[in-house]
């Protein structure tokens, strides 16, 4: 691992897929993608469907051979197995071996990462507890719900405490509680100095999590940069006020007008559905409990 190198460097990345009987049909998935993720950054990879996010992930993981261009993780080529030692990956789907229990599954991925037996057991237990899977630790992954599989997927990505996390749609299938825990885990990882690249369509969540974003569209980088700069919109400010009656509100409007401003919208404050959901769960004490398991025998495509 090159100590001075960026966590991720992508330069002029092209990828096309050939199909058809004579492989003459060419689909260009990436057309000159370049971006850079510094160590310790949390970066969101966003874009419409077919924009090239998953293909970029494939190249970053060494699963796809770039047609042209260069990909480096900490200065090394990801196609070398040793480079992937620094990597934790949460795939978009959850293709985990359904025959294993959650505990065995984490130990399996820990073993693949080269962790000693005692260490992987310790980390597996800690991660199962951290992600609310402790009660389901000895249940087969085949009977896990989609949300639980996402939690497991996050746990397996973290098992080797890698300095770089690639998370593909991490919040997909998670309930608001899970999404909040995911955000907390990412914040923890950021505090630990981990670099995180996450692809997601949950823009609101990304806004609060990411330092920067890369917007891909039709295989090209449409937009790239730090979020505060990208989201800055002139001199406008947003106020949220509680406890004002109508005369006070009218006075406020007058004051704003007197100072050259213009009140553009006045809406009664409403609780967001997500907040309501979480508060209800917290009232019921479910926040500390394990997720509810589906009935036995309900198999999912793990």
């Amino acid at each position, binding site marked *: 691992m090159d100590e001075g190198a960026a966590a991720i460097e992508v330069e002029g990345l092209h990828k096309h897929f050939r199909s058809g009987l004579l492989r003459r049909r060419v689909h260009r998935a990436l057309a000159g993608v370049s971006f850079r993720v510094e160590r310790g950054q949390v970066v969101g990879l966003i874009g419409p469907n077919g924009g090239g996010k998953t293909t970029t992930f494939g190249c970053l993981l060494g699963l796809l051979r770039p047609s042209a261009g260069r990909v480096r993780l900490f200065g090394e080529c990801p196609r070398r197995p040793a480079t992937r030692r620094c990597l934790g990956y949460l795939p*978009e789907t959850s293709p985990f071996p359904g025959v294993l229990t959650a505990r065995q599954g984490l130990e399996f991925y820990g073993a693949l990462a080269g962790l000693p037996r005692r260490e992987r057991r310790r980390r597996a237990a800690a991660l199962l507890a951290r992600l609310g899977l402790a009660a389901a630790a000895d249940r087969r992954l085949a009977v896990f719900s989609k949300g639980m599989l996402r939690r497991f997927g996050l746990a397996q990505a973290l098992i080797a405490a890698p300095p770089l996390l690639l998370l593909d749609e991490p919040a997909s299938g998670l309930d608001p509680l899970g999404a909040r825990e995911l955000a907390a885990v990412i914040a923890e990882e950021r505090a630990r100095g981990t670099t995180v690249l996450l692809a997601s369509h949950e823009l609101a969540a990304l806004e609060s999590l990411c330092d920067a974003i890369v917007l891909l569209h039709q295989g090209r980088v449409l937009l790239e940069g730090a979020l505060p700069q990208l989201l800055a919109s002139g001199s406008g400010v947003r106020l949220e006020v509680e406890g004002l009656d109508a005369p006070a509100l009218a006075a406020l409007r007058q004051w704003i007008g007197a100072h050259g401003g213009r009140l553009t919208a006045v809406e009664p404050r409403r609780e967001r559905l997500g907040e309501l959901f979480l508060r209800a769960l917290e009232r019921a004490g479910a926040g500390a409990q394990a997720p509810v398991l589906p009935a036995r025998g309900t198999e999912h495509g793990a």
Partner: protein
Amino acid sequence: MRGAGWRGLTVVVRLVVREHAAGYCMLGMVVALGAAAVGLGTPQLEPGGEARLALVYGLGATELLVVLAAALLGALSLGTTLRRRRAAALLARPLGRAALLAGHALGALCVAALVALVAGATLLGALLASGHGRALGALVPRVEHLPAEVLVGDREGRPVPAPPAFALQSGENALWRFRGIPPAAGRTAAAWLLQVAPAYAAREGFPGAVEVALAVRMRPAPPPGDPDRGWVHSRHVLWCGRGQPGLLALPMPGAASGHGGETGAGPPHDIEVLLEVRTPDSMLAFELQPPAGQPVGEQGPNSGMVTVRGAERSPAAGLVALGVGRLGAGAVVAALGVLGAAVVREWTAALAALVLAALARFPELVRTFALSVQALGTHAHPEPLASAPAPAWWAVALQRLAEGVAGVLPELGRLDWSGAVLAGRPVALAAVARELAALLPFLGGIAVLAWGAFIRRDVRAA
């Protein structure tokens, strides 16, 4: 096994075993029980014959199952891993692609070994539970002596003994090869006279029928400058005798005669005569021995040349040989399956692996095909013609292809020691090791091909 890429090999092997062992072992148990039931339920004249038949069926079924499990698992486990995107989650770890391939092949082989073990234990358990435990100790052939003599016509048509070459085969068929039917000098046709006088001596009765077949394999004139080409194309069963104990007095004298025709353009060459003896009902295993001092592969006197005798049992070595032999075959097939799945869809790969395994198990099928294609391309008549036209190009191409396949594939039949084990003949483990070592170049070639195909392949992440 150095380097990060290989560290996860055993983890992948364990996963494949864990995912598939239970189902396949259950299948092995069911098949072994079925074979035991059929064998034990078929009345036999020989004391302990039912147990013997159950073993014959059971061992055959086990071999089939091991090869089947290795082919299906080798192809399906890797194919499913790729199709369900699981490979992306695995290869995102410091796991090399070669280790992923090898892990699936070894995993398939381990499951095949477990299947063999479970099926064998089930078979023996069924025999013991059905009260045939004692019969297992009496599984030795009863035939004591089987001399035979083949006469061929000399140039004047007088019968003379044909010198046999002791290319012996043990198993359920006893086969002798004879060479040296003298060609008619200066003619393109050769006439011959064959006589066979087999005689059998059996102690304690004979378990079923004996079938004796005499065949002639002719060799048309080879192309100029290439004496090894243009081999045999026809096979005529001239005589077939069949005797049932109780109906036929033993020893049974017999005789057969026939005459041949043209051998093709140019001077006729060696005409090979095959004498085949088998016991189709009881599938009794022969142990063939040349007369004292007669090395295998050399010609010798044509009289009393083979003795089929009772043999001593050596179950432990036999079982080891059986197991190792089946695993050797399983290794080849698992590797074929994984190679296929690295390149094509898993079911296509599994089917291809099975076909290749069948060809490797019975290479004589390929050779026979090659010969029949040549005959088809030359003429449709079984008798060779004096002025045979050159074979059609497609026949030559097909023949070369078949010969190529037969030449490249290892002979998996050489790994089957069930005949020897059933005959109670000790199997030298050195011979087993030699046969396994002969597979290594083939396995190495497959591994290189698979790696070459898979290393460049894109693995879809989603």
